[in-house]
């Protein structure tokens, strides 16, 4: 292959490296209004009255909207497939506020300063309601967070259960009876933040024809168009959503957070409007990773082979439930499909609390489930005195294995049966074992106050949502043999525009520079469900490949006609007859446009897949533990990934290198904390520390290059798979270093010291 698997510069690299104005906010519109949202200071309250008079009297205030200005139409902010699998439990503005940061009113002013000043002049009288801050206390609580009759598809609103499922495959009780060893534990993961550097930002205006234009930093432009259309009751055809370059998303922008408010102001006033969240608002009023409390019980035979798994998930979805059902469904699916097991059972509940709303975050439930599974695996290995790598190798899935849980747990309803067509997990584990000199490192003598240790964890993920995710592409040829590739796919910084151009270039046999990509504009690019679930290369890439094959066929056919031959080949940008006579791509296109058998060489294609081939990863962590202070230092991470055929090696490496510090953050230093009233405490990067360049351990990234038969040129997903295994690998390395077993993230020095005290 000429372009697949080769280093290719990002198509947007020049503009981004020069700081060119390519982001949503890099545009000034005349007469633009600036929006600010008044947010609830209370975790749970009813608005008795709102007096906006004093605020409205400030010079420069144009509009103030409260709950009285919007119909009671329930929706979900989750940008997912349609009909949405998330409960419709929110209003644009409501009379009840359910967490500190919930929206109370929106102000539109001539400047940000004026809007800010007006915030303080709105007088709100609240009737305080009891707040639920502990997910374990939510179900039996006399307080009901969503008592209204309007919401749709809440599983049991009276018990604060947003979503629920249970399932059993095989006979789990019998499986435990047959087991030689049964171990169980409770594992919990924290509220963590996507922390993309560009905050949520949206601009809206009316174009010359009065159509609504939404320019937004979103991963899901087509879902934005659909949801805004429904909420503001304007036809889809009257809305254009444009996604420029995005400053990171990681799932945080798979959500309709501000677009409908901004559009409402533009529609009401006829003027351009801008809304941007502050960093502080990002921390408590945007989205986060669902904290989960997982009870996991595994029974194995004397050889360590799985006989039964029982998984119980309690997911805290916060005050509303976007992605609540599907995130815990992914937790279960990934935790229950990494290893072979004949008997599996799961019960999962998502409960409401009066805390910030969780949503989609890279990994989408997998890091929580893999954390529990991979720590318990280490405990089993220790108990049976089997090498942790060997225990995993014995239980690995093989090509041809069915993943029965995939059929049971789909995207909010029954899914599709999945058969494994490729797996490199064993190779990843073996490659890592060699690379870290596992035996020697494991057996290093532990003495002195600083103890070093090494641990391993494995993970599997998916590639797109089977039967749901759909991407499409439109490809047309120009007379200089360049091609415009128009895709609905959304490059959120991942480099997907470049990967899609490489796929088109490979098919068409032209240099990547000949492919001009335009993506994510609902007026000009065809539909795509959006950039999530690690789907773009696989799903949208499948559409690009099909469209390019059709275009190539047209070039070939026009070329043969122009040469007057039936037989020919395509070589080096020419159609060449047996005689050696040839005609260039450029001439074929030019003559097709202007003189001969006239037509535009172009094609469209769509792609959807019932397969969702799992990529795999094995992560090895080397840590040192200071037994005097409890401080854990990660010294090196070796991450080996099977993502099928790699399309663009530096970009794929970059996905892994970026996922690791996010995972280490969840393991060691990131968590959103709240006071006894539910108010957030750490809403900036000082209180909420994300990895800096100075904090980074040594990172070694390796790929086991396989071939996934269902993917474009053999590719599987790479964006999310590397984020799940680092946290359990660190936990297992800590155990190897000092014998302390951690089951709750993030790992705090006091947890280590407490564990050491218990040991001695």
């Amino acid at each position, binding site marked *: 292959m000429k372009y697949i698997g080769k280093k290719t510069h990002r198509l947007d690299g020049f503009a981004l490296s020069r700081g060119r104005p390519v982001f949503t906010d890099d545009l000034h519109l005349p007469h633009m209004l600036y929006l600010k949202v008044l947010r609830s200071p209370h975790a749970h309250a009813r608005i008795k009255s709102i007096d906006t008079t004093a605020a409205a009297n400030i010079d420069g205030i144009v509009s103030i909207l409260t709950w009285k200005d919007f119909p009671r139409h329930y929706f979900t902010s989750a940008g997912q497939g349609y009909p949405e699998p998330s409960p419709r439990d929110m209003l644009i503005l409501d009379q009840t506020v359910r967490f500190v940061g919930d929206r109370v009113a929106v102000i539109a002013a001539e400047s940000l300063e004026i809007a800010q000043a007006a915030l303080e002049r709105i007088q709100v009288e609240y009737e305080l309601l009891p707040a639920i801050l502990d997910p374990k206390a939510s179900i039996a609580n006399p307080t009901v967070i969503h008592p209204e009759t309007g919401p749709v598809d809440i599983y049991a609103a009276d018990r604060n259960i947003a979503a629920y499922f249970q399932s059993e495959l095989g006979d789990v009780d019998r499986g435990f009876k047959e087991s030689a060893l049964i171990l169980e534990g409770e594992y919990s993961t924290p509220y963590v933040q996507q922390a993309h550097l560009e905050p949520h930002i949206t601009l809206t205006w009316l174009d010359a024809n009065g159509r609504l234009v939404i320019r937004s930093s979103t991963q899901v432009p087509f879902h934005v168009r659909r949801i805004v259309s429904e909420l503001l009751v304007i036809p889809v055809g009257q809305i254009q959503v444009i996604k420029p370059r995005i400053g990171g998303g990681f799932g945080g922008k798979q959500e309709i957070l501000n677009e409908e408010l901004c559009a409402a102001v533009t529609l009401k006033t006829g003027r351009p409007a801008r809304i941007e969240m502050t960093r502080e608002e990002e921390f408590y009023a945007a989205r986060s990773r669902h904290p989960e409390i997982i009870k996991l019980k595994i029974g194995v035979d004397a050889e360590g082979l799985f006989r039964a798994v029982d998984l119980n998930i309690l997911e805290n979805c916060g005050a509303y439930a976007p992605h609540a059902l599907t995130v815990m469904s992914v937790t279960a699916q990934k935790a229950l499909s990494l290893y072979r097991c004949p008997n599996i059972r799961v019960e999962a509940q998502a409960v409401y609390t009066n805390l910030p709303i969780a949503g989609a975050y890279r990994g989408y439930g997998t890091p929580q489930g893999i954390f529990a599974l991979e720590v318990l695996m280490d405990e089993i290995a220790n108990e049976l005195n089997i090498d942790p790598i060997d225990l995993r190798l014995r239980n690995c899935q093989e090509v041809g294995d069915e993943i029965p849980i995939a059929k049971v747990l789909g995207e909010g309803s029954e899914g599709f049966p999945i058969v494994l067509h490729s797996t490199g997990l064993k190779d990843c584990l073996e490659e890592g074992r060699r690379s870290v000199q596992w035996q020697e490192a494991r057996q290093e003598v532990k003495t002195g106050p600083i103890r070093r240790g090494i641990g391993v964890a494995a993970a599997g993920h998916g590639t797109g949502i089977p039967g749901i995710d759909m991407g499409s592409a439109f490809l047309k040829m120009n007379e200089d043999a360049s091609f415009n590739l128009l895709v609905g796919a959304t490059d959120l910084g*991942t480099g997907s525009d470049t990967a899609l151009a490489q796929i088109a270039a490979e098919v068409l046999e032209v240099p990547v520079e000949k492919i001009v990509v335009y993506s994510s504009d609902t007026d000009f690019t065809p539909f795509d469900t959006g950039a999530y679930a690690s789907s773009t290369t696989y799903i949208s890439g499948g559409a690009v490949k099909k469209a390019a094959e059709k275009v190539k066929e047209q070039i070939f056919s026009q070329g043969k006609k122009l040469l007057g031959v039936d037989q020919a080949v395509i070589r080096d940008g020419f159609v060449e007859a047996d005689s050696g006579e040839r005609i260039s791509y450029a001439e074929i296109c030019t003559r097709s446009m202007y003189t001969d058998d006239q037509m535009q060489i172009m094609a469209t294609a769509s792609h959807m897949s019932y397969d969702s081939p799992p990529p795999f990863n094995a992560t090895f962590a080397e840590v040192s533990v200071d037994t005097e202070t409890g401080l854990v230092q990660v010294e090196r991470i070796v991450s080996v990934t099977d993502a099928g055929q790699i399309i663009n090696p530096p970009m794929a490496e970059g996905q892994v290198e970026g996922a690791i510090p996010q995972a280490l953050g969840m393991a060691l230093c990131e968590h959103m904390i709240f006071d006894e009233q539910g108010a957030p405490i750490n809403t900036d990067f000082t209180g909420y520390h994300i990895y800096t360049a100075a904090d980074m351990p040594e990172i070694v990234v390796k790929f086991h290059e396989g071939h996934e038969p269902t993917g474009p040129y053999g590719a599987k997903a790479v964006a999310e798979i590397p984020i799940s295994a680092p946290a359990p690998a660190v936990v297992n390395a800590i155990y190897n270093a000092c014998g302390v077993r951690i089951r709750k993230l993030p790992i705090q020095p006091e947890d280590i010291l407490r564990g050491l005290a218990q040991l001695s």
Partner: protein
Amino acid sequence: MLSVRFTLNGQPVTAEIHPGQTLLEYLRSTGFFSVKYGCGHGECGTCTVLVDNMAMNACLLLMPVLENRRVETLEALESDAELAELQELFIDEGAIQCGYCTPGMLLSLVALLREDSKPDINAIRDALSGNLCRCTGYVKPVSAAERFILCR
């Protein structure tokens, strides 16, 4: 309103501002979009500019303190051959993902290189430690800077 005189990208400017205005607000309102809002608290570095050759967070600088200072943004450095080479290495190395933090990172490296022509890897990491990046894990930005120093 106040008048502040300083040099912006080599040009003398007189800015009419209100005293509470930050350099970040001023630069973005006058079209210098490489300087970005990320946190407003001087924690993330997306608004990095050079003030008298030092990398600083524009969101923390109130306009009056800039009197007689020399301010540079990435836009000014288009003609700087060394910076262009660093930019090309960022592209070649794959050091750019979403690109939101990239201008700030480049300016932090420029400030470092003006002070020390052969910094070691620890100095590079220190220089970048004020520029948060959630995409790259800093691996490729650091190696792009290392390559630049090796090629010098």
